[in-house]
């Protein structure tokens, strides 16, 4: 654990007097990683790639831990042997979290490629690697269509991005899909319904099922988290 990591993982704001002080940065990274994973697995649309370098940092930590394991292996002293077991077990847990998180994102991006790369605001939700992947994937698909049948169409019909008419060719996620959230603070939630729109007075700890479009603001403000 070098000083950069500690600095990098410090909060932009000082922890409030009501929040637990003395949470070591490593633990905070695990908490952040876990929250990002749960959230990404629970929403209909792609969430923003953390801008604080969380995953780049975690990737380095995992790399270093793997090196450590390689040093330790071979040393068959039962004591270190057990420490090794513990370290490897934890390592696998972290690798799974990152893997599942990344593949969940790729899955969402693949499903709505054009949606995410045709719009600046949405494009910035992807990591540079993800965006490069998305652009390339869209290219491969379009060329595959052109080679298979689209190329024989009148030029005016060879596009994949016509949005006019009763249905847009650019599919997008259904932002009104139902999600489950936990309130982290007491909060008033504006909910949209078929027959009525209403304001739900939620208590800290409530688990609520509602439209993602109604939950999004709360989650982004940190008043609620996805479960």
């Amino acid at each position, binding site marked *: 654990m070098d000083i950069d990591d500690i600095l990098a993982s410090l909060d932009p704001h000082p922890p409030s007097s009501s929040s637990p002080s003395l949470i070591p940065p490593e633990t905070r990274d695990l908490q952040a990683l876990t929250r990002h994973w749960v959230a990404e697995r629970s929403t209909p649309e792609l969430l923003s790639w953390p801008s604080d370098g969380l995953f780049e940092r975690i*990737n380095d930590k995992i790399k270093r831990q793997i090196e450590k394991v390689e040093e330790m292996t071979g040393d068959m002293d039962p004591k270190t042997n057990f420490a090794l077991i513990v370290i490897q077990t934890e390592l696998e*847990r972290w690798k799974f979290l990152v893997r599942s998180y990344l593949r969940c994102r790729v899955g969402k991006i693949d499903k709505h490629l054009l949606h995410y790369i045709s719009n600046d605001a949405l494009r910035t939700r992807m990591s540079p690697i993800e965006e490069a992947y998305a652009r390339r994937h869209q290219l*491969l698909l379009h060329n595959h269509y052109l080679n298979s049948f689209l190329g024989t169409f009148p030029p005016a*019909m060879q596009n994949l991005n016509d949005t006019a*008419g009763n249905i847009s060719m650019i599919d997008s996620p259904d932002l009104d899909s139902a999600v489950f959230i936990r309130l982290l603070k007491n909060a008033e939630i504006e909910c949209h319904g078929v027959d009525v729109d209403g304001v739900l007075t939620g208590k800290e700890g409530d688990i609520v099922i509602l439209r993602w479009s109604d939950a999004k603001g709360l989650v982004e403000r940190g008043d609620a988290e996805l479960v």
Partner: protein
Amino acid sequence: MPAIPGVSVCQNLYLIACRMGVRSGNWLGVGIWQAYGSLLPHHHQLSGALVAGEDKEVFLSIRKRQISQLEKMPMYGDLGNKLVQHAKRTQNLSHLPPYQTELVRAVAREIRDLDKDVASLLEPFQGSFDPSTEQATACTLLVNHLSMRRNKRCLLAYHRTRTDKLEELVWNGADILDLAGQTTGAPKGGATDGNEGSGTTSSLSPQEEDYFRQFGDLLALYKGQWTDIDLTGSLEPPRDLFIDVRVLKDAGEIQTEYGQFYVRQGDVERLIAQGYLQKLG
């Protein structure tokens, strides 16, 4: 105003039909019908160049099959629908049924025919077509246009369903040879579902085989950015990495003085199967 920027002429044509529904913007309409008309010569060359004799055979034969099946005049879009029904079945299969070469060709062909019809319908007007005075023609044009759009959507959805499957196979580490094994005895294009006995023809189109390789390369590139994570690893949360074992026979390698040992499960599964070790707890 010739056309609305960023929207294809066909879209505009279609757009107008819709717009006129809500306001009588005929001046606008005419403008765009003209814009469409002005493209005609180009269209002629294009579609002319693309009428391959073989296509015609296939097209007619399928039309015949259609007629006998439906006992009614087949409608534009019927073939596209068949394609989508194939896609629907494909979604629920764990393997990839044969590519519907003939059907795809026929549907694409239908679009070119429709485009030709549109062209010849508009030709007499020399680009000065006015839908408000030529309602019948306007209606026919709209029907043709909608049929083209419909066919395009069916073709795209069918191919997308299959590329989704192909991508999943790549993620699961299948290689092109496994897919060559993915075969069926059904006559090409005749398969109703992929479950026929095995034959020798690949169920992938040549283009799909290319796509499979290209996506494989793309994925390799992406995975390369996260080598330590092993992106193609299991998506099931890790279970116990390590297990307690008791040594039953001397396996040479891992015998120890105290007959009990804690080892990585993956390393010893074969030894357990062979009866050298016994799993405890």
